[in-house]
């Protein structure tokens, strides 16, 4: 009887240890990329390209740049950071968490006003007098939270330049990242939304009804940099790939603008 109990315990321990075995196994060199939600498609493709070469494995975590920056600040094991605005990169540079020499500003984007494909709104003149409340007709304007999501911050600046922010502010549905705002417009829950041109480009459910003039908001740049003290050969290889012609072609395919090196 007692012996049986001990045997059962031993078996349990063995099964448990076996279950944990994979945690012990050596993993291939890994690159963890923290990238702004708006770069989801392009960076996923670049990771796939990197992984197909087989030397190391790259995985990406996508969220709002603010979320990612805060996570890196708290010690998240990220190797590469792709931010959708300059401020959040500066924030990490100030905290000495970024290798400043690795920083490059090569990606550009635009913000646009979108509507569901089925919407009767077709073209909006993006200049004052800009009757956004009238166009919303009681609905909400979907955009990234202007408190912290870069797409929302640019959107707020642009709407301020166009003189409609005070009226529109109470009508804004604030999303945790720009892709959530896109989804609300896609589903027709919000009649209009402010997202990046690249987001509008990947969705078949929305149409661009207006492009915000570049003079209405600060330039939208995506700084890319390596996190300080985490550079390994695999990370360096991924960084080099990001600067390569192949990666640039992928970024362009999804509608990003590229600044001349």
């Amino acid at each position, binding site marked *: 009887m007692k012996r049986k109990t001990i045997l059962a315990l031993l078996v349990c321990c063995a099964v448990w240890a076996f279950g944990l075995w994979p945690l012990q196994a050596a993993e291939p060199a890994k690159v963890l990329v923290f990238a702004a939600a708006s770069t989801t498609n392009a960076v996923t493709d670049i990771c796939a390209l990197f992984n197909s070469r087989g030397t190391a494995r790259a995985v990406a975590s996508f969220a*709002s740049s*603010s*979320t990612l920056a*805060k996570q890196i600040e708290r010690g998240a094991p990220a190797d590469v950071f792709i931010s959708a605005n300059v401020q959040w990169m500066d*924030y990490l540079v100030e905290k000495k968490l970024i290798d400043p020499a690795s920083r490059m500003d090569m990606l550009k984007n635009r913000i646009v006003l979108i509507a569901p494909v089925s919407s009767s709104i077709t073209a909006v003149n993006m200049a004052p007098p800009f009757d956004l409340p009238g166009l919303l007709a009681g*609905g*909400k304007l979907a955009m990234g*939270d202007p*408190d*912290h999501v870069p797409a929302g911050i640019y959107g707020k600046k642009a709407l301020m330049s166009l003189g409609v922010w005070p009226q529109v502010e*109470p009508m*804004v*549905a*604030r*999303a*945790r990242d720009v892709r959530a705002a896109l989804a*609300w417009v896609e*589903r*027709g*829950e*919000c009649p209009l939304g402010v997202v990046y041109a690249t987001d509008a480009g990947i969705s078949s459910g929305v149409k661009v009804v207006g492009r915000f003039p570049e003079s209405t908001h600060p330039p939208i740049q995506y700084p890319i940099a390596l996190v300080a003290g985490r550079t390994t050969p695999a990370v360096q290889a991924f960084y080099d790939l990001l600067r390569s012609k192949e990666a640039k072609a992928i970024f362009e395919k999804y509608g990003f603008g590229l600044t001349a090196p």
Partner: protein
Amino acid sequence: MNPLFDPAEMEAIRLSLKVAGLAVVVCLPPGVFFAWVLSRLSFPGKTLVDAVVHLPLVLPPVVMGYMLLLLLGRQGLLGGWLDRALGIHVAFTWKGAVVAAVVMALPLMIRAVRQSFDEIDRGLEAAAGTLGAGPWRIFATITLPLAAPGLLTGSLLAFARSLGEFGATITFVSNIPGETRTIPLAIYNLTQVRGGEGPALKLCLVAVAISIASLLLSETLSRRAAKIIRG
């Protein structure tokens, strides 16, 4: 001016209390109904009803939020009808925040009430029946009063769950200051902005204080209720 909290924080606190309080009120009737059905009836498919009722407890809150958006959004099955027939908008409003809280809190309410229904001595109900009381009267004068501790516990759990609700709320009704930005959403936002750590911590302490206060209140009330029931 309130020296402790700025207007935005006060708004989040007030909104949280409103949403959680209303969620408890809305939860009570269906909570008691399902608890009674699950405790007293046996019928084919009862296990299924039991499982469906408990779904919000085990599903990720984001899934519940998304399902609510699909169902109650303007383009949703029920939401479209509400919009056209009654002019009621739930998505992106505080009413939607109440709906999200109710859905997430209902299983906890049902579990607590059902347990106290299970514990009631059925002989008391039968005695009332032989003395000529109808089923509604038995329920109102015997069953429900005897289940008071369960109702209190259920209400407290529902209140606490509603107060903490985040995932379903942010997915279904967004994060609109003064409309749907409750304490947890305000904390989330503060942790996303520069210099928000201090205010975020302050709101965390508020959440703790409200939770402890409601725990103490429910504890006192249910002890008093138990005393009255035992006579």
